């Protein structure tokens, strides 16, 4: 059983939703990411999404755009991200790590080599925002060879016909994008998301995570009441970027993550 499957099976037994924080690797520097990775599981992270910075993040709002830029300016690259994952895996063998990013850095690295290297480093799944099912065979096949899950996205524009395309080849969990928009911009409507998640869960045996509009512990709790995971990205990244001194920012970010985790974990009473 993969780390992702095992983690969701445990949570299901406990009748709890997962809390999934997103960080851009290397924002604002590699050491900060390493420190956060190390401490996030204790703060309540069940799965960690690690953003691979890209120069042209078309699906991201201002917060993650800025974080990608900070990471790139600090010299973050795919090989360095794999080094961060290897360091994390020395101490943590159970928390799944999912890489989230855009296709071009993977294309430049080479898809076969990428799948092999990330799997060896200890990555469990891949979310590639601009690689829809129609184009992702180049990555899906090498990923399968190295037991990496391809996490697919469903959105408010995904109708039933489209959903069957999305589900064909999907692994790990489904990621429901709760808003039509870029990350961290709009707010979701709870009833709409609830309906969408019910539809996804009846169409697929995979756990269903929700992200792209969750900013507060209250919102995380609302989502965790019915979804299998609540993903928070922009709001965490913003904490990390706020003006305070570095050690304080790190503490503040971890406290915020702990509050989000607590809210998500307690949502089903």
């Amino acid at each position, binding site marked *: 059983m993969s780390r992702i499957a095992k983690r969701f099976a445990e949570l299901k037994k406990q009748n709890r939703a997962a809390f999934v924080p997103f960080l851009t690797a290397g924002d604002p520097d590699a050491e900060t990411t390493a420190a956060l990775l190390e401490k996030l599981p204790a703060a309540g992270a069940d799965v960690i999404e690690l953003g691979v910075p890209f120069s*042209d993040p*078309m699906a991201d709002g201002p917060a993650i755009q800025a974080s990608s830029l900070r990471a790139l300016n600090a010299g973050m690259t795919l090989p360095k991200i794999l080094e961060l994952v290897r360091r994390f895996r020395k101490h943590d063998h159970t928390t799944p790590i999912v890489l989230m990013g855009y296709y*071009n850095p993977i294309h*430049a690295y080479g898809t076969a080599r990428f799948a092999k290297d990330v799997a060896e480093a200890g990555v469990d799944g891949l979310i590639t*925002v*601009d690689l829809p099912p*129609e184009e992702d065979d180049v990555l899906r096949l090498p990923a399968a060879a190295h037991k990496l899950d391809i996490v697919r996205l469903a959105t408010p524009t995904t109708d039933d016909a489209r959903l069957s395309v999305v589900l064909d080849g999907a692994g790990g969990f489904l990621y429901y994008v709760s808003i039509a928009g870029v990350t961290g*911009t709009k707010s979701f409507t709870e009833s709409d998301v609830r309906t969408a998640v019910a539809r996804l869960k009846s169409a697929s045996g995979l756990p269903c995570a929700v992200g792209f509009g969750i900013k507060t512990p209250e919102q995380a709790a609302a989502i965790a009441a019915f979804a299998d995971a609540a993903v928070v990205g922009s709001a965490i990244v913003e904490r990390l970027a706020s003006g305070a001194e570095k050690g304080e920012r790190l503490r503040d970010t971890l406290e915020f993550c702990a509050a989000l985790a607590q809210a998500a974990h307690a949502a089903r009473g």
Partner: protein
Amino acid sequence: MSTPNSYRTGPDIRGHFGAYGGRFVAETLMPLVLELERAYETAKRDPSFQGELDGLLKHYVGRESPLYFAERLTEHIGGAKIYLKREDLNHTGAHKINNCLGQVLLARRMGKTRLIAETGAGQHGVATATVAARFGLPCVVYMGEVDIERQKPNVFRMRLLGTEVRPVKSGSRTLKDAMNEALRDWVANVSDTFYIIGSAAGPHPYPAMVRDFQTVIGKETRAQTLEREGRLPDLVTACVGGGSNAIGMFHPFLDDREVEIHGVEAAGEGADTPRHAATLSKGTPGVLHGARSYLLQDRDGQVIEAHSISAGLDYPGVGPEHSWLKDEGRVKYFSVTDKEALDAFVALSKLEGIIPALESAHAVAHVMRTAPGMAKDKLIAVCLSGRGDKDVFSAAAALGETI
């Protein structure tokens, strides 16, 4: 590699030109891109759609555009006969309107009520703002802050036409960032918005659709050369940024093996310096803005900022069909520096009384260095994709004059 029977059949049903093209967009946009493809395929086969477009091209744009024999330029250079395809004489002053009219008619058929676009030089923005005004649709154009500064006259034109110009402050603040921002807008406004892409780039069906709407340039040029000279040109050429005027000019000639075809990219300060926009000459294949294509990128796959004096060519990507035509060897791609383009800008103004767009001046510069090596009975057809009025401020600055 075997030579195909025809170079004009692409793309395949997945939107691929060989290894290039495709649909690399966020899942939110996939249903929209597929819907657009279906709507375009239906419209293409509907004679009333083409009829309405032809009527507008004739009475609103002023087509057909002349094929003008540049007599003094030809004499001055002393070589092949040079013909200019005068897209600069179109309404709005460039070829961009051909495509915008096609797409706005499609938007109306699809029941879309809001238009968005990206623009570099502002020519596509002005053309989009124009069709938005003509059909009474609200319109937002995304434009990099750097480009807003160097293309002020076009910014004013767009506003005058009732369009909102939104400055883009991210990244290099030029065309690529404007396109990112337009894609973000589209993701957030999926139900009512039609995205009018101006380059032969982006996810399928855009590269094919933009090309189809621009092939009017090459079809007319082909017929006009046959009528004037009784034969086809020996060389057809155009400037390439994203490549819409070029693919429109080239496509009708692709299967005429006797016609040589040259695309001209912007070499900025020199194709061997870090500051250029010569994507096909110096780039490598990658994925940006929805398609696999040649790209200026570093070895980690991060996109490198392009540089050109011409805002319309200042783009680190290029249309996928050009990428394929380069690999197939059917079209040869060259590059021209800022300085060579400026010299051509001045030369064409002084010799023919035609002020070309800085983009088009790149193609003219290539002709000026190629024609002398060709016999006097050879024919060159160059696409003069736009007029240079918009460039007078930046050209004056580059030439050391104050206006």
